[in-house]
């Protein structure tokens, strides 16, 4: 005869069974997310769930900065005002010549039958916080799908490229910084027009200029700007400056480290640059076969 324990002793499955269940569920989710990208709807739902908590978390910080702004001294504001006016005057002169040059450029382009460059849509966004995941370099900005942000759009500040939008939620989006491991940008050396691809080194502060021959014409201090051949980044935005070059005859490529020009630590305001409307749609991409971190961004490099 078998005895069942009375129901008030019954506490469900054993803890180890429960642990196994949740561990398997987590592993399943991780594989689904990393390899097949099927978990995006779930992620978007969870992000929406966390959004009010995040807003509440941001409130005291925003309040504090508001109070600081309110009490910032008049002297400082006056000084800032003067500096801005001076800068505006200086820029106004440049702007006049710029307009003349743009008109001339458009005219010349028409003459040679080249495609006209269209102005891109620019969205001002604010960096809310840095992602807490220690294995990647990401920041979260306060504009999302509602403001027509799309995955893949470049993000810049007033100095240069910061990164690229990699994931879009309705109200927020996630920007992978250029210092993230394997994040790639096509660049051009300002001094001689040499084209290359710059990768994030993964340590959070440096970039690496990959696959340059040991005798490539690159010097310390060379400025790198976006080359624009990928159709995503507009051409000519500063990316980095070459900081250190190691040429070792034992390797076929030189090891070139660069320092990023811009960074998220400087300002909270950034610009998200829209797509070039006249570009043809990108060709269909096959499912990436490489490691997940590379696969997610593989489309850009292909």
């Amino acid at each position: 005869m078998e005895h069942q324990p009375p129901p008030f002793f019954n506490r469900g499955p054993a803890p180890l069974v429960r642990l196994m269940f949740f561990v398997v569920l987590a592993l399943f989710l991780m594989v689904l997310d990393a390899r097949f990208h099927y978990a995006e709807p779930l992620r978007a739902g969870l992000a929406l769930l966390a959004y009010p908590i995040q807003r509440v978390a941001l409130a005291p910080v925003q309040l504090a900065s508001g109070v600081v702004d309110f009490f910032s001294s008049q002297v400082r504001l006056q000084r800032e005002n003067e500096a801005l006016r001076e800068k505006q005057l200086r820029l106004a002169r440049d702007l006049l010549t710029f307009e003349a040059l743009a008109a001339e450029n458009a005219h010349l382009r028409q003459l040679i039958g080249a495609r006209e460059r269209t102005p891109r849509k620019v969205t001002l966004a604010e960096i809310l916080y840095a992602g807490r995941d220690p294995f990647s370099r990401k920041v979260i900005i306060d504009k999302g799908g509602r403001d027509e942000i799309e995955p893949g759009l470049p993000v810049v500040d007033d100095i240069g490229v910061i990164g690229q939008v990699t994931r879009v939620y309705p109200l927020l989006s996630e920007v992978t910084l250029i210092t993230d491991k394997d994040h790639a940008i096509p660049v051009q050396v300002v001094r001689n027009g040499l084209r290359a691809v710059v990768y994030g080194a993964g340590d959070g502060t440096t970039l690496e200029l990959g696959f340059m021959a040991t005798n490539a014409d690159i010097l310390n201090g060379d400025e790198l700007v976006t080359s624009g051949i990928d159709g995503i980044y507009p051409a000519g935005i500063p990316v980095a400056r070459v900081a250190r070059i190691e040429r070792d005859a034992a390797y076929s490529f030189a090891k070139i480290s660069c320092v990023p020009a811009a960074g998220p630590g400087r300002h909270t305001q950034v610009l998200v640059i829209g797509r070039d409307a006249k570009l043809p749609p990108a060709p269909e991409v096959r499912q990436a076969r490489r490691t997940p971190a590379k696969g997610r961004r593989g489309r850009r490099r292909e």
Partner: protein
Amino acid sequence: MIDGRPQRIMLPVNVGFMALTTLLALLFNLLPWRDMSGLPDMLALVITFWCTHQPRKISIGAAWILGLVMDAANGALLGQHAFAYSVLAFSAAQLSRRILWFGIWRQALHVVLLLLATQLLMLAVGMAAGGTFPGYGWFAASGIAALLWPVITFMLLLPQRRPEVVDVDRPL
């Protein structure tokens, strides 16, 4: 108690208070930190606390869901925190009878090991998914969190402490 100090009889815990403190810890983790090296994972600490003190009242599933929210909010691999937190909740609940036997600083020694194991699990998952090694400084977060263990214990047990009314008729 191993160190022979008198132990106070506690009131039963309020589940609403447990939920509130866990939510506050999540809020702490979602504060807009610019630099997060050495920043303690408050949510992991609070989960450890409730799992050691009230292993019946908090389930592994709750830790799992909290981890999932952390993943989604930080853009991490979905399931990375959930995996680590569920293992943390399980081991804290299993070790709870042992841990509570010790004094507060020896409890903290147990907690630092639990949190380090959690970080190692996350590191394994993150590296397997092609992440960057965050540097050894990242592990300091566990030590700092363990230093906060006495503070957390004091604060989270406050509502359970009996009001200290001296009653001559009832010595208890």
